[in-house]
């Protein structure tokens, strides 16, 4: 509760701050302060279990350690994101405080979709997350690609929201008691009535769209590529993980008892997402587009938690959210500093910017899933969940083969950085790379390795 209210209020505050101060850097510091505060109050709520504002939400939102842990991860990643990319957000355009305000509204939406307990709250949360993102995608106003991406995202997003609403309406009508509460939609393991089944499929489609699972992924590469890179970074990491979290919670709590009846759909989604994401990423020349496809591929792995729905899946989802967000935020932050977004643009970085290259290597190794990194642990938990489930082991084998394919495109960047010389001779990164930026990158890399060695660092939060 604390996090929802604080982030929403802070968003308003950020917007007003623009009216009183024209200092761009001020907005950044204010934003960082806001996230830190949100993180603190959220942790306090986790510890005491009692929020500052005791509003009776009629159980429409639910605050347990699992949900709050996720909010913590989202806030932590956002904090890191602000620290790493704060000065780049300033460069996007004129309206710096507004950008931060919109990001805070997204955070508020994330806090709602992490805790929702009714379909209505889910819908409201998804909208609060999406609308600021439409604006941010198109925020580079003079860039045609950014405009195109913004419009595309808005149109596709609206359709998927419409589909979701239709699904919610059908579920409401089909539920025995006429209730929006996700636990009341179905009871027991009886065969699904047609209305519920239709509603479930519609919800599945719209959520698959939000997490860019194939075959509902077509917007992702264009939007991620067109949006200003700083905002792509946020969309591809924190927002995506949050959408996943909502997806899993919705299907686990609402339809968990009928898991066997919709499992096949998830299997198809996983197989399609893994194959399409990985195979298309192989052919990309631009690192930014490659990361967009790789985010689809990673979504395929996260979908395993929906396939398995057991203890490992739950821990794995939280781990995956943290590991994937950390590594992606890091690699995007480095990407922003490059002049040239193609893979050749990374040639010779190992010599000119050893710290950037080394940390980028760790992020890429983590995304590939090499042991000792958080990425390995998260993939391990996910696959373990699926193996423990005991059915469709072929899917796990497909997943590891896809992970091997992913090594190809992630390692192309590593090869460029270390084993190829830059053709242009000198390529000073576009923006000055400050020591504090480097220090933050190193901190992120260390965090990835610490989680890789001791995943209990994160998973234990779920139980305390």
């Amino acid at each position, binding site marked *: 509760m604390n996090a929802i209210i604080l982030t929403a209020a802070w968003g308003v505050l950020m917007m007003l701050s623009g009216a009183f101060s024209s200092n761009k850097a001020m907005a950044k510091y204010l934003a960082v302060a806001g996230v830190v505060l949100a993180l603190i109050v959220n942790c306090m709520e986790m510890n005491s279990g009692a929020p500052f504002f005791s509003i009776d939400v009629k159980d429409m939102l639910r605050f347990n350690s699992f949900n709050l842990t996720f909010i913590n991860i989202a806030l932590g990643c956002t904090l890191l994101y602000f620290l790493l990319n704060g000065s780049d957000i300033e460069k996007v355009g004129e309206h710096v405080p507004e950008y931060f305000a919109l990001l805070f509204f997204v955070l508020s939406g994330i806090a709602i979709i992490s805790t929702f307990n009714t379909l209505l709250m889910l819908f409201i949360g998804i909208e609060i997350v999406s609308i600021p993102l439409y604006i941010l995608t198109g925020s580079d106003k003079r860039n045609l690609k950014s405009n195109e991406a913004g419009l595309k995202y808005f149109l596709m997003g609206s359709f998927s929201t419409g589909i979701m609403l239709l699904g919610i309406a059908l579920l409401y009508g089909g539920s025995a008691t006429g209730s929006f509460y996700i636990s009341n939609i179905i009871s027991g393991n009886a065969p699904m009535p047609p209305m519920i089944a239709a509603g479930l499929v519609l919800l599945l489609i719209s959520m698959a769209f939000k997490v860019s699972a194939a075959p509902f992924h077509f917007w992702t590469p264009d939007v991620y590529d067109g949006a200003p890179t700083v905002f792509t970074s946020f969309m591809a990491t924190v927002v995506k993980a949050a959408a996943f979290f909502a997806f899993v919670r919705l299907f686990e709590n609402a339809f968990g008892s009928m898991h066997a009846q919709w499992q096949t759909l998830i299997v198809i989604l996983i197989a399609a997402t893994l194959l399409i994401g990985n195979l298309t990423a192989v052919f990309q020349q631009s690192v930014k587009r490659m990361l967009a496809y790789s985010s689809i591929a990673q979504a395929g792995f996260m979908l395993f938690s929906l396939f398995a729905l057991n203890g490992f899946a739950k821990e794995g989802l939280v781990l995956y959210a943290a590991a994937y967000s950390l590594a992606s935020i890091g690699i995007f932050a480095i990407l922003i500093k490059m002049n040239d977004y193609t893979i050749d643009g990374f040639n010779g970085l190992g010599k000119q910017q050893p710290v950037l290259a080394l940390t980028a290597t760790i992020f890429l190794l983590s995304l590939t899933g090499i042991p000792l990194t958080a990425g390995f642990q998260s993939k391990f938990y996910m*696959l373990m969940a699926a*193996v*423990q489930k005991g059915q469709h082991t072929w899917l796990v084998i497909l997943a*590891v*083969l896809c*992970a*091997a394919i992913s*090594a190809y495109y992630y*390692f192309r960047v590593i090869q460029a950085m270390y084993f190829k010389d830059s053709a242009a001779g000198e390529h000073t990164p576009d923006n000055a790379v400050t020591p504090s930026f480097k220090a933050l990158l190193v901190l992120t890399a260390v965090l990835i390795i610490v989680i890789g060695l001791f995943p209990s660092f994160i998973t234990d939060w779920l139980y305390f």
Partner: protein
Amino acid sequence: MDPKNIWITFPELLTWFPLMAGLVAFIIRDEKKVKAWALAASFITLGISVASLVFSDNTKYFYLNNVSYFWLKYVGSNLTLGLDGMGHLLTALTALAFPLIFLATGKTNFKNAGAYYGLMLLTQSGLMGVFTAMDVLIFYFFWELAVIPAYFLCSQWGGERRIQATFKFFVYTFTGSLLMLVGIMYVYNHTYPTPYAEHSFALNAFYSATLSAKEQNWVFWLFFVAFAIKMPVFPFHTWQPDTYEQAPTSTTMVLSGIMVKMGIFAVIRWLVPVFPAAATRFDNIVIGLSVVGMIYASLIAIKQDDLKRFVAYSSIAHIGLMCAAIFAKSSIGLQGVMIQMFSHGINIIGMWIVVDLVEKQTGTRKISELGGIAHKAPALTIFLVVIALANIALPLTNAFVGEFMMFSGLFHFNIIYTAVALISIILAAVYTLNMVQKVFYGETNSITNAVQEITLNQKLVLTVLVVFIFLFGVFPQPLLDLTRDTVTLITTRFK
């Protein structure tokens, strides 16, 4: 000994010391200093290994050789390291190989030497971890961690086509390991519970996993592919000649001398005892593949003109025999494998040192362009001939003992395989002697005219190798005594 008085154990020292030394090497800028540091560190590791051999008796010094810490407590994986007979054997090989490699290639200048020696020592740490891991998840960790530094070593300091060749190597092994990971998870779900977790990754848990014959039949292959790629066994060998050719020679020594042993080792520790039923069921297929690979690799070796590719193919042939001997499942064959793992490591490192010396002096590896080196460098030639004879497994050399025992093991299993495999020994004589004759004898030419005799340092290294070749050729008993416990364990799994 009282476990309370022991604050650090041999497997820990063997694994963590090279790791620490490697990390330190990264920050040393001066090339001379980093070389000295790496050499000193590798000698200290060798010292630790020798000490561990002195205390190798696990009935008396169990707590010096085994250690376990909680790691993923609620998942059932602990940081368990231990040295049994086979572990002692292979850690000793690893510890011995690195100082020799550093000494033999000490003259070579590497650009960015700190990173080079750092990565070499990290590889050593990874290898030690693989050989001491008694928990399958830890084993998997080290299995991957040994490959990553090797990948960077080959891609950074290798030959012209290094990037493609090394990447092929990496993708092959990574795919294999991931398949093994699926297998590991599957077996894990059939193990007994521990006090803290529902299942366990411990070695013993895996040995007592309750897998039906049907499950064993397919999970076996997930593991086998990973290990077959690493060994490599035909038809998973295609990465190997390319990588050996393109990698810097010192890294090739590590890859061929020790890293291929990871595959053999893993089959003996993690494959055959975990899936005894499947290992029996598929023994014909695996031995068949190995024997085909032996003949195939030998035939290609005869036609090779490149010295590095020549050694690579000859190595595939030798590894094939080891793999076949394991699946013959006889005690004598397994003992032969143990001896041969050590011997092959010694011999092939010797072979690479000679190849490296020839290449450094003449600038070419083409057998057809060389000739008459014996006139110019008699000492080098003597060493080479001894190593070459060991490669053919002539009596008195260490390889003879191992190969003889492996062949007797294979003979009990099936006489036809043995007969076919024996052809490869004849072929080995053909290609090895052919190479010796073309490169070292005959007339000198414009390329080999400038060859000089090897230095004292190089003589010392080669002498050590030759001493080992003869020592274990006439007196292999220490190796047999050391690995008796492992052999007994494996053979009892088949009863």
